[in-house]
């Protein structure tokens, strides 16, 4: 999937990937896609929950060798 910005959260545990995503998404324009790379498995359920709560769109997750690539579309200006 093509992303407009990438956030590297490798090696970070809950809740840091979510907190960093909260910061990073502010830099994007509405409609743009953020890719978050993490190795904490919690992100598989945490990111959809974060999206549901904040109103951003959860696009999906790709997993390869314990590395998760999560895609989020910015839906609203916070």
């Amino acid at each position: 999937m093509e992303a407009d910005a990438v956030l590297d959260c490798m090696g970070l545990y809950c809740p840091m990937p979510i907190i960093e995503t909260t910061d990073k998404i502010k830099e994007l324009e509405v409609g743009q896609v953020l890719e978050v790379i993490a190795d904490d498995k919690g992100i598989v359920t945490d990111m959809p929950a974060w999206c549901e709560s904040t109103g951003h769109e959860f696009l999906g997750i790709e997993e390869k060798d314990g590395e998760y690539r999560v895609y989020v579309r910015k839906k609203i200006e916070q």
Partner: protein
Amino acid sequence: MAEKEKVTIVVFSGELDKALASFNIATTAAGMGMDVTMFFTFWGLNVIKKNRGPLKSKGLMRKMLNWMNRGGSQRLPLSKFHMFGLGTWMMKKLMGEERMLSLEDSIAMAKRLGVKFIACTNSIGVMGLGEDAFIPEVDGFAGAATFLGEARKGTVNLFV
């Protein structure tokens, strides 16, 4: 979006692990766009006491209490395996190796994300402490009615 959801956390305990769990939830909730207030009461006041300098209090019993119960984020024991500080030292070391946030970093992070800190006036009175015993990040000093006023509007209310 509709009005922000409200989260309240009563931090009653003065132990490192419980404080970390409280801040973990508080910062995540704030990151999820929720309005978070943390109420520090009783032993939980130790989490937000200043780390440096003497704490002033009046009377022998209060002086003894505050000497034994000095508090400050850097002095909190673990609720298990404190082992006179050795267990806590090891846990902090392991957390550092895993790049987890320290309690001090968590407090700063919570503040940056807009989490409100309220200290309980009742406990402060019992312990004979002044407002100057606490870190400047504390937003206010209030009682149970303030907590309940927030909690009744809260969708998530926790007691740690």
